[in-house]
C-alpha cells in the first residue's frame, strides 16, 4: 500500500434479498490492516447497522468470505495493501448465494449441497472396534490429505461460473469433500456417494475452469478432486457396477 494513503475510499454493498446498492465510507488506513478490519471499523464507527459474518479472525472458521474488488476472498486473511486499487476498495456479499442482509449471505444451499453430495462420513466400525490403522503413506490417504483442509468458506462456490449458470450443480466444495471420503477406507458409503455425485447435478457438469483452485484461500485444488471423481465414476461403470 502506498504509505501516502491516509484514508481508504471503501464502497460497501448495503441491502437485502430484494436489492441494494453501494455506499461509500472513508476509513483510516493502518499498517497490517485486513479487509475484515476495514468492515469492522465501518460498523463500529460509521454504520452500526452494517451486517456481516465473522468468528475466528485467523482463517480457520471460514465465515468471513466476501467479494473484495470483484473477487471472492476470506477477508480476515486478506491484507488491504494486497487488494487496494489506488485508495479504493469495493466490498460485497459472496456471489452465487442469496443475500440475507448487507454482507451476510444465506449459505443454506451451499451446506445442503455439501450433505447432498454425501459429504457426511459413514462409519464402518463401532466404538467397540479397534481404531483402524491408516498409513499416512497409503496412496488413497495421500489423495485425501491433499484435499482435506477445506474450511467451507464458500469462496470456491462463489468463484465457480458453473454454479452461476447451473443452480443444480453441487459445486466444488461439496465434490471436494466427496473426493476425500471416497479415498477414506474407513467410510462405508463409497457406492452410494458415487451414484449421487455422478447424477444430474454432479461432477460431470464441471468444465474445469479452475476458478475454485485459483481462489481457494487454503490453496486446495477442487478441480483435481472433481477430475478424480469423474475417473472413479467412469472406472466403476466399466467394471460393471458403481461399487468400489
Amino acid at each position, binding site marked *: 500500500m502506498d504509505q501516502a494513503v491516509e484514508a481508504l475510499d471503501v464502497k460497501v454493498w448495503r441491502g437485502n434479498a430484494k436489492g441494494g446498492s453501494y455506499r461509500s465510507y472513508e476509513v483510516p488506513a493502518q499498517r497490517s490492516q485486513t479487509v475484515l478490519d476495514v468492515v469492522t471499523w465501518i460498523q463500529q464507527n460509521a454504520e452500526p447497522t452494517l451486517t456481516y459474518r465473522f468468528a475466528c479472525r485467523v482463517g480457520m472458521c471460514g465465515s468471513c468470505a466476501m467479494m473484495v474488488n470483484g473477487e471472492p476472498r476470506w477477508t480476515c486473511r486478506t491484507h488491504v495493501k494486497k487488494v487496494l486499487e489506488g485508495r479504493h476498495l469495493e466490498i460485497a456479499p459472496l456471489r452465487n448465494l442469496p443475500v440475507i442482509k448487507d454482507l451476510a449471505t444465506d449459505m443454506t444451499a451451499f451446506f445442503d449441497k455439501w450433505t447432498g453430495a454425501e459429504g457426511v462420513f459413514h462409519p464402518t466400525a463401532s466404538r467397540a472396534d479397534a481404531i483402524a490403522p491408516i498409513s499416512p503413506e497409503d496412496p488413497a490417504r495421500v489423495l485425501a490429505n491433499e484435499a482435506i483442509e477445506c474450511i467451507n468458506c464458500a469462496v470456491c462456490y462463489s468463484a465457480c461460473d458453473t454454479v452461476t449458470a*447451473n443452480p443444480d450443480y453441487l459445486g466444488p466444495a461439496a465434490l471436494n469433500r466427496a473426493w476425500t471420503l471416497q479415498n477414506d477406507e474407513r467410510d462405508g458409503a463409497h457406492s452410494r456417494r458415487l451414484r449421487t455425485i*455422478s447424477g444430474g447435478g*454432479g461432477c460431470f457438469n464441471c468444465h474445469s475452469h479452475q476458478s475454485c483452485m485459483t481462489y481457494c484461500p487454503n490453496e486446495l485444488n477442487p478441480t483435481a478432486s472433481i477430475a478424480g471423481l469423474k475417473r472413479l465414476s*467412469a472406472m466403476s*461403470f466399466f467394471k460393471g457396477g458403481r461399487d468400489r
Partner: protein
Amino acid sequence: MIGLRLYLAQRISAMLMAPLVLGHIATMIYAVQNGLSAAEILERTQGSFWWGAFYGLFVVAVSIHAAIGLRAIVCETFSLTARWLDLFTWAVGILLLLLGARAVAAVVL
C-alpha cells in the same frame, strides 16, 4: 444436467472423432494437392464400403458429441427443465445424423 452416461458418450465419441478428423484432413489435402475433380472423387467413393464406414462413423460420432455439447450450453444459458433438455438433445442429434447420413449417401451410393 450432464450425468455419467452422457459424459461417457461425449468422451468416447471424441476419442472416435480424433483419428477420423486427422483422416479427413489428410484426405482433403491429398485431393487438393493432386487436383482431383469432383468426378474423380466420386469415382473413388461411390460403392466403397470403407469410405461409407469412415464417414458414416464420423457422422454418428459428431451427432452424439455435438448434441451433448450443445445440451450443456443450452442448459447453462436458458435454464431449461430436464424434459426440454432431453428433447433438445435428441432433436439436435437426430437432425445432425439425418443431414450427415444424406451427405454420406450422396458420395457413397
